């Protein structure tokens, strides 16, 4: 760890990681089928693929979570046989999962030594040594972290740094990052890339898993593509184009990610005036017309989700007014907002959207139940018929309507949740990160759906941290920073730089 040898990515010594013929079966599915990869010291290997391509199965085997059914994993040429994630870490592999694996109640320093708290001679925990070692790591890696801070109080990007510090504390030779930027702001992404460069310079091999193609081009040296559990290709990233990557990933080419039909704006539907919440939003005012997509862009913590939840009556407001077609949202509740035709598609499908054990129909008809209800009784036949029509219309892939929603893919789950509101019939829909954790194929379909809804006259408020999505879908863009709207643009005459400038204020 102390030696800082600058690795040459092209050297021919033993690779840090060499995987050969790795196979994993689950009952009825071949999740990973004979995959071989190699990563060398100081190299970034990107792994891309749609959801279900086998990326997470591969990572989990490298992390020691799953046991392979076939093939080998070798670190520095030594074949490994992991019984647990702790073994993988001992062998030098550290995975930074998308869902950060830290204990929020513990301090930064304690989390770094979570695997094995440093102890004194008598076996008690050596707190001073833990703090000292944590500080050493931060100094060496250049992280601005406080060892005594509680992890639960840190931002996601700071928590990632804690995770990376864990890798350094254990002299990891291979760091695997699973969708590390999905919750990061552009600025934080820049910081992360600097950290990755520093890790490379420390001779650490990196596997970088992401959906975001522009990041792949920027950070990775080589790129492995998986599809349906199979290895498709491994090439220097520079030999790829955007289109060639997408084509290899989905097995077909996607001509246009963001279809845009002709939109006709109607009257103003949403009027928000001087909105405040007690801890975040600060004098928010805007209007949205029928058939218009208003995009809200902001860095992490700028208040996008807070705004989304406040305008639909989910979270309380301290001042200001929200009017839908001139009707005041009062009392401030989701019951009232729904009656005014305003609804939110939450960013957190699992926590705030799905009823995991319930079936597809039940999930889809939750908001629109009243439509099938006469005198309190639900007409199940009408309900099923309507649900089926939405399944057909949005091409939701499922075996039967009665299957539990947890068995659907993320993209199909999202379509069900969108159907939940469309079945009800909204005037305004608030979409908070509508494509988070959804693969490219399904994303395109959802983009098209949003476009179609707008062209049919729905007012759309889109909260997003993804620049292409923002620019591809919105008619106008509001930029949020620290709970305030710092700028409003027409999408047709704005650049990414202008938007970022406004967001960083």
């Amino acid at each position, binding site marked *: 760890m102390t030696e800082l040898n600058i690795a040459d990515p092209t050297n021919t010594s033993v690779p840090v990681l060499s995987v050969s013929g790795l196979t994993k079966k*689950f*009952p*009825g*599915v071949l999740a990973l089928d004979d995959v071989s990869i190699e990563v060398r010291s100081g190299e970034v290997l990107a792994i891309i693929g749609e959801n279900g391509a086998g990326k997470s199965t591969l990572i989990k085997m490298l992390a020691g979570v799953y046991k392979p059914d076939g093939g080998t994993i070798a670190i520095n040429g030594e074949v490994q046989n992991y019984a647990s994630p702790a073994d993988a870490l001992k062998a030098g592999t550290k995975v930074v999962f998308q869902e950060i694996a830290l204990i929020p109640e513990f301090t930064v320093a304690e989390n770094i030594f979570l695997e094995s708290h440093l102890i004194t001679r008598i076996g008690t925990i050596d707190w001073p040594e833990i703090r000292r070692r944590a500080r050493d790591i931060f100094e060496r890696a250049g992280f601005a972290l406080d060892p005594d801070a509680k992890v639960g109080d840190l931002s996601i990007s700071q928590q990632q740094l804690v995770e990376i510090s864990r890798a350094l504390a254990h002299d990891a030779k291979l760091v695997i990052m699973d969708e590390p930027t999905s919750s990061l702001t552009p600025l934080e992404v820049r910081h992360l890339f600097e950290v990755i460069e520093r890790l490379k310079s420390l001779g650490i091999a990196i596997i970088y898993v992401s959906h975001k193609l522009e990041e792949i081009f920027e950070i990775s040296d080589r790129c492995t593509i998986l599809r349906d559990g199979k290895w498709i290709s491994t090439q220097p990233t520079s030999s790829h184009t955007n289109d060639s990557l997408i084509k290899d990933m989905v097995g077909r080419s996607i001509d246009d990610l963001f279809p845009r039909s002709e939109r006709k704006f109607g009257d103003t539907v949403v009027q928000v005036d001087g909105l405040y919440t007690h801890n975040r939003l600060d004098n928010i005012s805007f209007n949205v017309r029928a058939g218009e997509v208003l995009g809200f862009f902001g860095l992490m913590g700028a208040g996008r989700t807070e705004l989304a939840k406040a305008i*639909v009556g*989910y979270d309380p407001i301290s001042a200001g007014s929200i009017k839908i077609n001139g009707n005041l949202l009062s009392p401030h*509740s*989701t*019951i009232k*907002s*729904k*009656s005014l035709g305003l*609804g*939110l598609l*939450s960013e957190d499908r699992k*926590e*705030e*959207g*799905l*009823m*995991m*054990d*319930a079936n597809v129909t*039940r999930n889809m008809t*939750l*908001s629109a*139940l*009243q439509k099938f*209800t006469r005198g*309190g*009784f*639900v007409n*199940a036949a009408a309900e099923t018929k309507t649900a089926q029509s939405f399944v057909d219309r949005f091409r939701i892939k499922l*075996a039967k309507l009665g*299957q*539990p929603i*947890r*068995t659907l893919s993320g993209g199909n789950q999202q379509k069900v949740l969108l159907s*939940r509101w469309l079945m*009800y019939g909204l005037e305004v829909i608030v979409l908070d990160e509508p494509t988070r954790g959804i693969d490219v194929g399904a994303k395109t379909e959802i983009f098209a759906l949003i476009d179609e809804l707008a062209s049919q006259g729905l007012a759309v408020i889109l909260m997003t941290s993804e620049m292409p999505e923002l620019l591809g879908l919105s008619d106008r863009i509001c930029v949020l920073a620290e709970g305030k709207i710092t700028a409003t643009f027409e999408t047709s005459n704005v650049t990414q730089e202008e938007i970022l400038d406004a967001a960083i204020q």
Partner: protein
Amino acid sequence: MPATESIKQITNPIKKILTSEVGFLVLSLLALIIGISSFSEQFLSAPNAVAILHQSSLVLIVAIGMTVLLISGEVDISVGANLAFSSCVVMAVINQTDSIALGALAGIAFGTSVGFINAFVTTVLKVNSLIGTIAMMMMLKGGVFLFTREAIQNHHQLPLFPKIATGFVLGIPVPALIASIVAIIGWVIMTRTKAGRLFLATGANQKATRLSGYSPERVKFAAFLLTGALTGLAAVILASLINAGQPTAGGGFELIVIAAVLLGGTSLMGGRGTILGTIFGVLILKIVDNGIILLRLNQDYQIIFPGIVLILALYMDQKRRGTTND
């Protein structure tokens, strides 16, 4: 591993039949009936059936409310103490007014108001319902003795009152008839109405339910009120059965009710459960209870068996579903 599980379910048709919500319970019940009746011929006699129905009725009425409440993601430990207090209220009001109807109404109203306070403490004061209703149980157990120092008798000797619970309509004991009506209404609510959907939705995902334009607090409020009202109704029957209001009644009642509901397959975490399952859960527990007396076993087994049955049932349920709590 959700994906594999679904495949397991689809690929194994035999397992699929066994995973039907009540299949396992029906089999257990049949096994019990056959087992006990082969040792005791009185088991299947009419008087014994009536005795089982009487006793099951009280538990079932409250268990229907508890099922709805657990499905909504909350619990009420105070039902036993509420039962005792409400039965005293029933008898006291009958003594005051000479009206059985007013007494019954007062009992149900009292039970409901306890449910109201539980709902308030849980949904407004945001106290965990397990803790809040344990505290309510303590307060009711104390409060009932502030209300009456001793069992309240049927002072005016209204002969009609004790006859309600011991009477028959169309050959069916009245309590069983009332319990059946309650169970049918409960079943209709949970399977056929919007309200039932909202109880399930609230328990399955409270945040999603709120975002879908409903108030989970109101839903839970309704579930607590329902549980309280049904406890009051059970108290009317109890008072009629023993022809008195008994402040010490209902000891351990909450545990039997909850055990029966859980045995019936309702999830402690909310969002899953059926009225049909609860009916079988109650019958199984009460038949075991009855069988122990019938077979002249040591009555101490009456607390051992439910414990074993409960653990076993949950284990089997988990095996059948192929899920764990991990």
